[in-house]
């Protein structure tokens, strides 16, 4: 019951955030000074072309009208038509999404799989060689830029060992394994720096929890140090860790732009990059909104995860 009420409240907050975000994006892109059509076509555009584009963009209607038709379109899956590619934005986004979303999930899974054991291990050996070693490695992981990792991975696994292709995406129609195989190097390159950050957060969150009174209580009951860590420590350490995972997923979804360039992947990051270069405001606007939606949705999921972990949050709703 508490959980249901909490979920509804978070859902309400999600809807409100989306509405506000859509107004902000619309205002910044369309209402801000300057004419979107002349911006898109550049300074030397013919007046007739300009007028045609203005009609196409619906710039001759009122601003609220345009806003509502934009929102209504998005709600029904119509994101407009790209001016440069002359194809529906929805189709383009969908194609790219099939690369970016699995890549982000793949990278996040890898990063979690690396970070959790590393963080837990470091915390349980605080101050000892294992801790120092893991912390040193994460320091490197945080410091080294991911494109450099990417290039090193290509050098080693593609050029030297020839285990993976150096770039490109084969497509999911070649099968799940082939798809994942071609996303593996980019996912690793994306995951390593994230894993380094996450492992550090995991370690410090666990160390905080290990100092809590209830951990001593657990030991006094007769639990071993390891049992106390697993049964009482981990779940309490999850709140900061979940926060970071949420932020990282949002970043991975669109922020993989450099890695997409290095591996020549047709992802969302590249789509945005290309659309901005081509001044294709329709694509920029829609993809931005989509990413905002993704981030807000991830936050919503993280909020639900918080409440699942910590009963006190459910009660506070």
């Amino acid at each position, binding site marked *: 019951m508490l959980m249901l*009420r909490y979920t*509804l*409240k978070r859902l*309400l907050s999600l809807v409100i955030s989306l509405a506000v975000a859509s107004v902000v994006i619309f205002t910044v892109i369309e209402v801000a000074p300057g004419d979107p059509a002349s911006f898109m076509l550049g300074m030397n555009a013919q007046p007739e072309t300009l007028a045609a584009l203005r009609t196409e963009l619906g710039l001759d209607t009122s601003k609220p009208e345009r806003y509502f038709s934009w929102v209504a379109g998005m709600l029904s899956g119509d994101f407009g038509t790209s001016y440069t590619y002359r194809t529906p934005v929805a189709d383009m986004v969908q194609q790219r999404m099939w690369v970016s979303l699995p890549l982000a999930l793949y990278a996040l899974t890898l990063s979690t799989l690396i970070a959790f054991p590393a963080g837990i291990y470091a915390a349980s050996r605080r101050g000892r060689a294992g801790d120092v070693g893991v912390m040193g490695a994460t320091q490197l992981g945080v410091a080294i830029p991911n494109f450099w990792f990417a290039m090193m991975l290509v050098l080693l696994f593609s050029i030297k060992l020839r285990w993976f292709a150096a770039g490109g995406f084969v497509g999911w129609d070649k099968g799940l394994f082939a798809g994942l195989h071609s996303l593996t190097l980019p996912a690793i390159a994306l995951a390593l720096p994230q894993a380094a950050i996450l492992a550090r957060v995991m370690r410090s969150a666990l160390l905080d929890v290990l100092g*809590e*009174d*209830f951990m*001593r*209580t*657990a*030991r*006094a*009951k*007769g*639990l*071993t140090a390891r*049992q106390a860590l697993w*049964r*009482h420590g981990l*779940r*309490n350490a999850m709140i900061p860790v979940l926060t970071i995972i949420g932020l990282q997923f949002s970043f991975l979804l669109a922020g993989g732009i450099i890695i997409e360039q290095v591996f020549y992947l047709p992802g969302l990051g590249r789509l945005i990059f290309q659309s901005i270069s081509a001044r294709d405001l329709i694509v920029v606007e829609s993809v931005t909104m989509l990413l905002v939606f993704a981030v807000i949705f991830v936050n919503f999921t993280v909020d639900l995860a918080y409440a699942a*972990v*910590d*009963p*006190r949050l459910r*009660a*506070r*709703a």
Partner: protein
Amino acid sequence: MSLLSVQNLTLSIHSFDILHDVSFNIDAGEIVAITGESGSGKSMTALAAMQLLPQGARTTGRIMLGEDDITTWDEPALCGLRGNDIGMVFQEPMTALNPVKTIGDQVAETILVHERTTKAQAHKRAAETLERVGLPNDRFPLSRFPHELSGGQRQRVVIAMAIALRPRLLIADEPTTALDVTTQAQILALLVRLAREDGMGLMMITHDLAVVAAMADRIIVMRKGEVVEQGATVQLLHDMQHPYTKMLFAASAHEVTLPDTNATAPLLEVKGVCRDYRTPRKTVFGKPGKFRAVNNLSFSLNRGERLGLVGESGCGKSTLTRALLGLEAVSEGTITLRGEPVFTGTKPNLAVRRHMQVVFQDPYGSFNPRHRVARQITEPFYLLDTPPTGAARQQAIDDALIAVGLTPADADKYIHEFSGGQRQRIAIARALIIRPDLIIFDEAVSALDVSVRAQILDLLAELCASHNLSYLFISHDLSVVRTITDRVLVMKSGEIVEQGKTEEIFTNPQHPYTKSLIDAAPVLPDLKGLTA
């Protein structure tokens, strides 16, 4: 043969000597209190008996449980011992329980760790144990989370976890220090009952001699890691040998001599004050509820008067303190100091605030660790239109430090260089420096050891004469309020239920709540009446 026999136990942690040659016995069914001030090593003795010492700890000597020396046991064997043969209850019930697990799971865990049994069976026994410690299942189902319980109820859960397997020895480390007096009395009674029912040895760690005297069969007095005196309670109290024991006892019963005062002119006046807090909405679009923390409170404090305010946690003491200091607006009513309101518009009335200062409970948390003492204690100067500068400022700093028994040289030190008692002196110096009329003491001596507390109380008695001060003394500690105040207010659920001259209230309380408070407060036995 004793149940627990600690023999020549010496403990050091990273070359710091913590315990030195500690020896004592606890028999089955016996209640033994270990008492002493902070740093005496009493908690470390308890942790040593559990073999739950911090990293870097080295021990010599023996800790015999029955016929076994547990200092020779390996970790798996010790895990089998903890919770099974020895249970432990800690000081802080608010943090001793895992906040994300139900109380049922946490009590059942003790059983599941040690015995091969089903989860359902363990939960059934957990329910029985909770029932036994006074948490009946119909009101406190196993599915409750710790945050849904009060401090006293949580301490009962901790006790249930410790006794679920009916251990031979129960160690309770300051189990009631964080609790209100009436709750403390109930928890102490529960511990005694359980020890007697199960024939369990009880090692009770406490700094409070009054608690010790009332319940222990034997007392062990510790100081700086050594046992200075031990013996049967009545005998030891009757025939104290060691000067430290005598000093502890004297300090616990310390009474100050308040200078006479002729307090007739009102200084602080509180009239019909209410303070509401918003509570969360029940439904998404519903109206937020309200909680009345202070309800129609009226009293006045006369110039030169030492007024006490007692009440248990949640009675509205802190809310009232914030309102008096002008830190928050009140919902209804007026608070005036020297006839002027303490709160104007949206902020404290500085013209009035400079006549009123406050000393808080925690001498560790109430200072900025990065500032020197001089800067800490001169902060109230911000309240003045023309704060003293140069030599006048220096003089004010010196005077304030000397007045509280420190030296002018202390002004250049940082706060970590001082002990808890010295810090509280610095807090008082900070309050004194702008020569206020009124100082509010919010549990100002509650965190101090008894010997230090006695000194601070003496200091307060001197200061109110030399500096012409009025006090509002807020505390849950009745013995302190009794000695340091002329008049007392008793507060319950945001209202004053009784007020009057301190001595009259304590000797002849009228309101049932005041009576229950005074009855519940542990008192030191009258030494003359003791017969060995």
